[in-house]
């Protein structure tokens, strides 16, 4: 306890001995952590969006009006037996018209009063378990268009494809930016501690002379590096807390979906992750600095 008290007190003094440098490195760490948090949240959000879109992915198979019911049943069974397919629903002409009228009630610009015949075909709505399989299943069905049962096929895999590409690009780009920021943060911390060591070289000389162990000489600096990290994490978390609400609500307004569930669980994980990461970076930078500048 006594040692820990000494080390923490000395680290605290060290931090404030050169406030400009300490604050600068704290902010650098904070910016790095903000990027890191942004990257994590965006990645989560995109994955959630992909998940939502995937759950909505459907192929709609329009059927010929004069297709024989046995052929339709046979087609339905074949589709259902495909492992990538989750569910198949038969929508009759009448049900389709009901749906259209339902939509029309909410959107007055569509005038359906004049429709006397039903132009809509019978259809099969195919729900897929995974978006990656869309292309294969739709390709298989497309070959049968115009052969007596299937009249047309509607799929929309391009949105999912694009989202998957964006997620991949963001993951790689985010990692690259994060790596650069990590390097900058380490560099700044190493320098801050180097200056702290330099500022206290007389003290260190006396400590070694009177027989202080390496523990006493080194740990104040390592803890000072960790302080830089923790303060940076606090700044980053405060910034996230300040903007998280407005950003989330504007995303909801823009995309019509909540991209990330920013529940207390996720916030706690993010906070713990940021603080742990910051401690690691601060401690590692300081240790490196102490090893190179406190030799002998």
């Amino acid at each position: 306890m006594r040692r820990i008290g000494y080390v923490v007190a000395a680290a605290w003094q060290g931090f404030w001995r050169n406030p400009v440098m300490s604050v600068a490195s704290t902010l650098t760490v904070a910016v790095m952590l903000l990027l890191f948090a942004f990257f994590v949240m965006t990645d989560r959000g995109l994955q959630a969006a992909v998940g939502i879109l995937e759950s909505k992915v459907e192929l709609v198979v329009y059927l010929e009006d004069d297709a024989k019911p046995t052929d339709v049943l046979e087609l339905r069974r074949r589709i259902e037996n495909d492992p990538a397919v989750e569910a198949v629903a038969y929508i009759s002409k009448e049900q389709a018209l009901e749906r259209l009228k339902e939509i029309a009630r909410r959107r007055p610009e569509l005038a359906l009063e004049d429709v006397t015949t039903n132009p809509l075909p019978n259809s099969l709505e195919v729900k897929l378990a995974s978006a990656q399989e869309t292309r294969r299943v739709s390709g298989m069905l497309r070959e049968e268009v115009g052969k007596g049962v299937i009249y047309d096929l509607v799929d929309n895999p391009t949105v999912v494809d694009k989202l998957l590409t964006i997620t991949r690009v963001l993951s790689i780009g985010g990692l690259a930016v994060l790596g650069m920021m990590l390097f900058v943060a380490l560099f700044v911390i190493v320098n801050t501690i180097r200056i702290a060591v330099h500022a206290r070289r007389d003290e260190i000389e006396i400590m070694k002379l009177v027989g202080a162990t390496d523990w006493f000489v080194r740990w104040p600096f390592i803890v000072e590096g960790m302080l830089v990290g923790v303060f940076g994490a606090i700044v980053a978390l405060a910034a996230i807390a300040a903007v998280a609400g407005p950003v989330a609500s504007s995303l909801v307004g823009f995309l019509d979906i909540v991209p990330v569930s920013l529940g207390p669980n996720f916030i706690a994980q993010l906070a713990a992750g940021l603080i742990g990461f910051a401690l690691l970076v601060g401690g590692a930078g300081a240790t490196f600095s102490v090893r190179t500048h406190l030799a002998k």
Partner: protein
Amino acid sequence: MLIALDDVSKQYPNGTEALRDIDLRIDAGEFVFIVGSSGAGKSTLNRLLIREELPSSGSVVIDGTDVVRMKRSQVPFLRRKIGVVFQDFKLLPNKTVAENVAFALIVTDHPARAVREETERALALVNLTQRRTHFPRELSGGEQQRTAIARALVNRPRILIADEPTGNLDPVTTWEIIKLLIRVRELGTTLLISTHNAEIVNALRQRVLHLDHGAIVRDERQGRYAA
């Protein structure tokens, strides 16, 4: 035998031969002057004793411990047995007299109570209790050196090494410091004093080691500054 050097030589990487074939025995409680011109090897000898340097060859044994072969992690514990005082005092300017002395105890992991008590004892020994809250810049040279001596002694070392302790002081203050060192020796601490001050050496008639070009050229029980 408190200090034993056998066949010790020290060459620096630039080729300078700082010490040559030193054989030396110092018993507990001795008062030893180390004399010789600048560059004779006095400082190198002191640095070998506190293991700031390692000899190129030979052995250094202090209080039964082989200093050359000791583990790096044991060096701090060797240094707690040896107090060191310098010509330029080496006090920390932003700490008071009492804080400078207490610092040596705090960084060697002593409990708060021991820090208080031992600091007071050391300050009383060097007669600086009244000056305990002053900063080094507010002190005379003699008071600064007494503070440094208190810091060197506060860990109750067995050996006190003083490297030109009176080099920056006027004659009156010099005698004040020497009287203090005599009292320290009377309390049981072994003294090694490197000096250029012939007057003191000649007045005290203690053991004198004369170094010249890295070799011991004279070792007298009740010696004088010059042969």
